[in-house]
């Protein structure tokens, strides 16, 4: 990166006019002047990005070490900021992750492009190692206060605390004030930023939306937060399964350009050509290689030659030969999925939900890259289906919530192209569906193509949009079962209302026109009630069958979910990892009681112990209300009616019909 000499450079001797010196500047200098490119374009975004970067790092680290993450976020207003419309804030993000070895602290928080994840082709949240250093830079720029880090690995007896600054000139982190202290956890990291910014809680780009999104896609995470105005809240984890992020598979030769191919060869040194091709790439087996050689008429000698001895020309011919051959698509094993069951449990954490549907697609190949799409649609309780507000869209790329620049995103494009009306949602033409719904779409891939460096928008290729569309349609179909029951119930309700509203008017008018006596009026009114009563019976039958279909679907899912949870606890009993034994006291009790099923979910939510059945019952909320409803009438004939009002009215009309 070449840049003109920056103003900040001290003691730059005055140059004669007209002559300009070309200097190079460090990566840190570049980013410090271009923080907007990495998510620090405004005081509002700065706060969000800081939390996001710290949280991504925590989650990634926990996953790498098989730790169930406990993450705490605290934001505190310390006073007014110097910039317009800002506050001076204290932002603390802490976790129970593996901790950072002391030697790495400066690198992690103070050096740009220092990362354990760069270019590894894994589905980790962070990739380049820019974000958290940028947050440090923002804090330094706005309040001249370095970040404060506390960290402890499980091998350390005491935690290390120090402050970190960025040396922009040399792209290096500098630590100061190192101390060792006693800390309340066996391992973990806490980072504290003092910075100016503005806390935006609500709206699509708000902090709460970000945190809720994270809660949804990380069922294994327990999150505590303390935010200005909203206070504290806790989301307990709903599964004890730490997602396994698979290691990257070897690169697929068709995804490589010639230059990459050549430098890849140089990494392998004295390996034989055949071995290099076989082990250095995916989808090149001995059989495939010999086929290529035969097909493209390459010499046998080349196959046995050491890679280092091969000339560029030879490597080019190999490259051309491989590109000319059609190969199996890359493996999809490198993607990590949340899973329908875990997501089902996680959806419940978002708040009061009427019902929901989830769909996880099988991993597949899009644009020659492995990818997996998962979708959850939930209806928020108490919202009106007639609402013209577009649905809330939660977008995730590698389980990181995306919050800005929604319109151009592949996910939004896919949503708008689905015909939601056929699933019972309202939708203006070529737009997002409307109504009180949360529509979450997660795209996971080791190679997500973003439109910009701050990773806010997924590039919309046709193949990717189509894959997301399919997932959405699958979830939509599942959701429509619920909606179908609803519309049938509404239909019945409407029909009953029709009778009450229009019956008397019809008869009265006919009587007036024909100038008929009251006797005819009474008779006609009775007759009309009978006719329309027959119709409502029919509507009731339809409603019953819609409900049966829904019940069956729920039952099947419940069975699967139960199996999933059993597996979950069995797995945990198996693992009971030794590193967790050194967990702090509050965690201890959990691990010790793994034998007891119900205690697995022992983290009390709202002070009430939740048995597994409780959790299962929230999965089908209408079920519980139904049992309550069916208990009320004397004879619980069938499970046809759930709406009390509908039931009462229908029994009336039924008895009227029976009289006849």
């Amino acid at each position, binding site marked *: 990166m070449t840049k003109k000499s920056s103003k900040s450079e001290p003691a730059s001797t005055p140059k004669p006019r007209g002559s300009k010196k070309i200097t190079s500047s460090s990566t840190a200098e570049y980013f410090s002047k271009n923080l907007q490119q990495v998510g620090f374009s405004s005081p509002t975004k700065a706060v969000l990005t800081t939390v996001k970067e710290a949280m991504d790092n925590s989650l990634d680290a926990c996953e790498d070490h098989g730790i169930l993450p406990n993450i705490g976020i605290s934001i505190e207003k310390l006073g007014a900021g110097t910039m317009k419309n800002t506050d001076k804030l204290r932002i603390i993000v802490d976790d129970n992750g593996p901790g950072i070895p002391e030697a790495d602290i400066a690198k992690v928080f103070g050096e740009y492009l220092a990362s354990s994840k760069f270019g590894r082709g894994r589905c980790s949240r962070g990739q380049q190692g820019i974000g958290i250093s940028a947050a440090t830079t923002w804090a330094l720029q706005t309040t001249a206060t370095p970040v404060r880090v506390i960290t402890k690995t499980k091998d350390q007896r005491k935690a290390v605390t120090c402050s970190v600054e960025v040396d922009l000139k040399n792209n290096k982190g500098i630590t100061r004030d190192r101390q060792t202290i006693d800390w309340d956890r066996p391992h973990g990291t806490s980072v504290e930023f003092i910075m100016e910014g503005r806390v935006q809680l609500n709206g699509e780009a708000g902090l709460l939306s970000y945190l809720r999104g994270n809660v949804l896609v990380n069922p294994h995470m327990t999150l505590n937060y303390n935010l200005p105005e909203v206070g504290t809240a806790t989301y307990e984890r709903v599964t004890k399964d730490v997602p396994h992020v698979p290691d990257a598979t070897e690169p697929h030769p068709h995804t490589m350009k010639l230059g990459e191919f050549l430098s890849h060869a140089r990494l392998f040194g004295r390996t034989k050509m055949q071995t290099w091709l076989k082990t250095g790439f995916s989808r090149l087996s001995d059989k495939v290689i010999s086929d290529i050689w035969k097909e493209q008429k390459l010499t046998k000698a080349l196959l046995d030659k050491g890679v280092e001895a091969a000339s560029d020309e030879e490597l080019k011919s190999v490259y051309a030969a491989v590109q000319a051959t059609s190969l199996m698509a890359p493996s999809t094993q490198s993607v990590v999925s949340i899973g329908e069951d875990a997501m089902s449990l996680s959806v419940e954490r978002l708040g009061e939900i009427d019902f929901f549907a989830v769909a996880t697609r099988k991993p597949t190949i899009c644009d020659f890259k492995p990818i997996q799409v998962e979708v959850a649609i939930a209806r928020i309780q108490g919202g009106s289906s007639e609402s013209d507000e577009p649905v809330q869209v939660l977008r995730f790329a590698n389980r990181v919530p995306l919050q800005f620049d929604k319109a151009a995103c592949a996910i939004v494009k896919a949503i708008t192209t689905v015909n939601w009306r056929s699933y019972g949602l309202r939708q203006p033409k070529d737009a997002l569906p409307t109504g009180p719904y949360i529509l979450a779409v997660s795209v996971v891939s080791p190679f997500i193509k973003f439109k910009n460096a701050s990773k806010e928008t997924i590039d919309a290729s046709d193949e990717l949009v189509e894959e997301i569309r399919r997932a959405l349609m699958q979830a939509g179909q599942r959701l429509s079962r619920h909606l179908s029951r609803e519309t049938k119930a509404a239909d019945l309700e409407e*029909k009953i209302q*029709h*009778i009450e*509203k*229009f*019956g*008397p*008017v*019809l*008869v*009265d*008018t*006919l*009587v*007036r*026109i*024909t100038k*008929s006596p009251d006797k*005819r009026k009474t*008779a*006609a*009114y*009775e*007759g*009309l009630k*009978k*006719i*329309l009563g027959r*119709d*409502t019976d029919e*509507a009731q039958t339809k409603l019953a069958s819609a409900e049966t279909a829904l019940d069956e679907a729920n039952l099947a899912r419940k069975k699967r979910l139960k199996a999933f949870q059993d597996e979950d606890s069995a797995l945990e009993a198996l693992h009971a990892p030794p590193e967790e034994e050194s967990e702090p006291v509050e965690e201890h009790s959990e691990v010790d009681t793994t034998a007891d099923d119900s205690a697995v979910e022992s983290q009390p939510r709202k002070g009430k112990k939740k048995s597994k059945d409780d959790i299962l019952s929230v999965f089908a909320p209408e079920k519980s209300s139904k049992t309550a409803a069916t208990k009320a009438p004397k004879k619980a004939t069938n499970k046809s009616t759930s709406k009390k009002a509908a039931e009462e009215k229908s029994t009336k009309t039924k008895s009227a019909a029976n009289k*006849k």
Partner: protein
Amino acid sequence: MPSVHSPRKGRINTDIMKQCLGLCDQMLADLERAKRPILKATKCSLDNSLYDHKVGFLTPGDKKVSTELNVSSVKKMSRSVFMLEILLRNLETGNVANKRELYYVSKGEIKHNQILKPLDFADQDESDEVIDFICEMIEAYREELNCFANDRGGQTYSQQLVVTETLSDGTEAVIDLSQLGTSPFQPKNRPQNLKLKAKKKIDFGIIIESEGTANTLVANGFTKRHNCIVVGSQGVPSNAVRGWVKRIQDQLKVPLYFFGDLDAYTLQNIYRTLKAGSASSLIRNSDFSAPEVRFLGVLPEDIKKYDLNDYSVNERDVQEARSLKKARDALQNDPFFKDKRNKGLAEILEWLYKSKRRCEQQAYYAVAPRDPQIAEKIIVEKIKKGNYV
């Protein structure tokens, strides 16, 4: 002529009122016996249209649309009966109202009676639909229920024609069209009630698609030089225009010609409707079509003969593209174009469909740009030479 074609010749208000009362009484009787009332109406669509050249217009087949009372239709039926009551009251008192006025009358009724609240119409489309439904139910013209539209078109010029109208108070108005100068006479409401008389023998009547062109011809002295009637139809003829031309045909018995653009829309939607009625108005075609009207032009052969400027059809234009598609359908399914007697017209339609060309009526003015009477000359020449279909 089968009786169904003109069921209401000579029908008067009391007949319709009697029919409506009978219908309501039947509905009430059905309800008393807990039987669902069924309302049957003639199916007004092309697949239920018949054409016989001896009859001259499209007549309904046997297909009926029936509406049965059930939970879904109870609202529609209640609204219909409600609107019927308003219409019957108008018939009784001799009041007239157009659809928009009826919409507000219904609004007013509902305002003063809360029980009627559920019937309230959200917009005029809803009340219009109910009025049309009533008409189909009792097979009556809207006009017979004293509901008139502001019919457009029909501006008529003649030096020989005298029209006598009987007004609702029994007095008569006599209109001598020769006294109107360049102002046209325009029939309104029910032209079937008008009496026509020719002061002097009228040689022909010509119906012109563009009212503008009709006015130009008259302003240039067309009606001074020829004993004729000139009528502007202004696009697709309204009920008033259709009934008016039918009246001219029946009462004056003069040859009638239609002069308009050469395109699929004019031939199917304007000329066919004028001559033989339309599929959507099957029950009223008998009083609203003039089978004697001939197609004077523009004919495809005129393009060559007079070297007229023509254009290719713009298939990206939605309406033009639809007309072309409709032309193909018409050739296959429209009994009017399929009838042997109308082979000439079907050939023009086929030519239009295949060549995808069109030519406007005003193109005649390009033949001799300095002669303002050129269109008149060509029209007269074509009539004289029998150059029409």
